[in-house]
């Protein structure tokens, strides 16, 4: 009995090997977990950096001013051309009467954003009855003050290295003591276009530009991509030509996007004469880029429709096109839409090709249509990241957050649609 037991293959060597096998499994598991941990750590690092840099951009420093809309300023002047800056300057001077000298006064006046005068202008244009009255209003502070209020200015450094001088700090302290300065929700950021001044810059123009661009992209690439996929998958004969087309479409998906930008510059702008910097040309270029993605996704989802459904339809006498449009396409649609949304998300985040077709220009106006010059969200981020002012750092991060929010929403929508319309057999 014992001898037999010793000869059993399930002892000695075997147990040793078994242990090794489990160890190998354990090692691999650990490797996989650590890989995921690394990936998560990087993701967390990225998100934390962006959010900690950018969250402050959603608040903006405002200063309370008591403005006397003196009649004399408006006499004989068009309402749009009156010297509103003088009103602001006088209000500041009244608040700090002991400021002497041109230089000091200029510094004082510079503490209010240049956008304040347009705010006054809008007020007066809305209600000319304000002329001659005295109003207490909140106006945006200059970006340096804003940065100081958000704690980005290191007061321990020598005065000459600081954007905020000691005198300014005193004035701000006076405002703080009188409760005349505070951080409020930054509506400007969501409603205005680009600006040279960080406190006046907003992403609305870029959001709209991206929206118009994506509308063009979607309107062109979805029908074309789906039609191409249906033809290739359901109707095209399998031969050299179709397999060549297939290979080329797959290759096209891997072409660097800036190449598409160059192509757009050469064909759409220089040859067809489409105005540059416009959502129209941007949409066309992104269409080129998105088409292969959509075609590949649409073909995959057509392939995943079980052949039994095609047979069932053909079996009751449906023609080829009826089979495709009545049965195959509805089943493939969720997958196609998912692919399209992912392609759109990719297009939304694309910067390089837009640089080539002039969408990198500094455009203040909010685009009103497809042929107005516009920026796109990622390009706006690129522009702000390039700007030297400290105020644009937080704006850059905030814009990235907005872009990420759009992308996450789109991807979540794709997942939701896949789950919702998924048909189980």
């Amino acid at each position, binding site marked *: 009995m014992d001898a037999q037991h010793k000869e059993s293959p399930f002892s000695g060597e075997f147990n040793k090997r078994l242990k090794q096998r489990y160890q190998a499994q354990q090692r691999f598991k650990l490797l996989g977990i650590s890989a995921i941990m690394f990936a998560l750590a990087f993701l967390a690092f990225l998100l934390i950096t962006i959010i900690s840099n950018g969250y402050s951009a959603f608040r903006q420093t405002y200063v309370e001013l008591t403005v006397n809309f003196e009649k004399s300023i408006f006499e004989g002047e068009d309402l749009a051309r009156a010297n509103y800056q003088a009103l602001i300057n006088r209000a500041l001077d009244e608040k700090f009467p002991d400021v002497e000298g041109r230089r000091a006064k200029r510094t004082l006046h510079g503490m209010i954003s240049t956008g304040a005068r347009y705010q006054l202008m809008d007020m007066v244009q809305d209600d000319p009855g304000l002329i001659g009255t005295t109003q207490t209003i909140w106006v945006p502070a200059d970006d340096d003050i804003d940065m100081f209020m958000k704690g980005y200015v290191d007061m321990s450094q020598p005065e000459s290295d600081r954007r905020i001088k000691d005198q300014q700090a005193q004035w701000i302290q006076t405002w703080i003591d009188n409760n005349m300065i505070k951080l409020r929700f930054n509506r400007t950021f969501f409603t205005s276009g680009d600006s040279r001044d960080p406190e006046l810059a907003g992403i609305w123009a870029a959001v709209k530009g991206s929206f118009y661009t994506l509308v063009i992209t979607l309107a062109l690439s979805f029908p074309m991509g789906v039609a191409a996929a249906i033809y290739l998958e359901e109707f095209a*004969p*399998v031969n050299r030509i179709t397999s060549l087309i297939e290979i080329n479409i797959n290759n096209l998906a891997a072409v660097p996007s800036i190449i598409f930008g160059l192509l757009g510059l050469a064909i759409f702008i220089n040859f067809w004469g489409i105005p540059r910097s416009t959502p129209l040309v941007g949409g066309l270029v992104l269409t080129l880029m998105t088409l292969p993605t959509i075609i590949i996704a649409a073909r995959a989802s057509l392939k995943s429709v*079980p052949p*039994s*459904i*095609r*047979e*069932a*339809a*053909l*079996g*009751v*006498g*449906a*023609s080829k096109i*009826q089979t495709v449009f*009545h*049965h195959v396409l509805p*089943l493939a649609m969720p997958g196609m839409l998912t692919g399209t949304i992912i392609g759109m998300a990719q297009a939304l985040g694309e910067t390089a090709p837009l640089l080539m077709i002039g969408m990198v220009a500094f455009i203040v106006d909010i685009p009103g249509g497809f042929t107005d010059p516009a920026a796109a969200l990622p390009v706006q981020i690129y522009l702000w990241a390039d700007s030297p002012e400290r105020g644009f750092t937080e704006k850059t991060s905030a814009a990235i957050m907005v872009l990420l929010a759009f992308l996450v929403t789109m991807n979540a929508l794709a997942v939701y649609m896949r789950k919702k319309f998924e*048909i*189980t*057999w």
Partner: protein
Amino acid sequence: MKPTAGADQDNNTEDTGTEPARRKAGPDLYTEFQQIVGNPYVDNPRMVCRDVYVYYGETCAIKKVSIDVACNEVLAMIGPSGCGKSTFLRCLNRMNDTVSICRVEGEIRLDGMDIYDPSVDVVPLRAKVGMVFQKPNPFPKSIYENISYGPKIHGLTKDKHEMDEIVETSLIRAGLWEEVKDRLNEPGTGLSGGQQQRLCIARAIAVSPEVILMDEPCSALDPIATSKIEDLIAELRTQYSIVIVTHAMQQAARVSQRTAYFHLGNLVEVGDTDQIFTNPKHQLTEDYITGRFG
């Protein structure tokens, strides 16, 4: 059409892969075309097949098969896997057209009309020769829409009332009406496997076919659902011709009037079901039926 010289060579190429396994099973009688044992012809044929060859690319899957399908009969086709019975079945309503490398030679007539004639439209042909597949494949739509789809695309009804009638009669004939009449708007995919298969049969008969082809209709079903389908087949025979491919020999014996035994692309033996199962004439048929291989 006559077989070409190339066709015989193709026979050999096909068999190289399977030969060793087959040799064990029985004498090597079947690599070449062989004469059909029994009488494949009937007096009142609905479908007539003469010298049918089917090629998949270079491979010959069906070799010179001639057989008739009579009116109001159930013809069972049996044989080991890969013997070509499903391929042959799918020729009868040109479902093989969807396979691009598939080529059919010979003559298949439905009520005297050559269905492989270039002038023949497959759409009405498939309406006349309905098909039920191995795996129940209802459309992922409502039960009602599953039935009404065929009549709708063929324009068989004038109004909703007529359509309701077709749906009801089809479901009644398929023996499903009592089970689903209260939930016609629920998806057909929500039914049980057996119900789904009967739904597929109802869908096939909704377009008033003359012939119904069934490709192992019960292979995915449990015995109870199977017996229901078998009862249904027996009943449908009064109105339609039915050709059924099956792996279950008892099933063939139960439902069919005539049985055809296929082997490696050859139609080996045809005869009345009773005769085939009690007194097979060909050695291969006997081997298969007695379970010596297959």
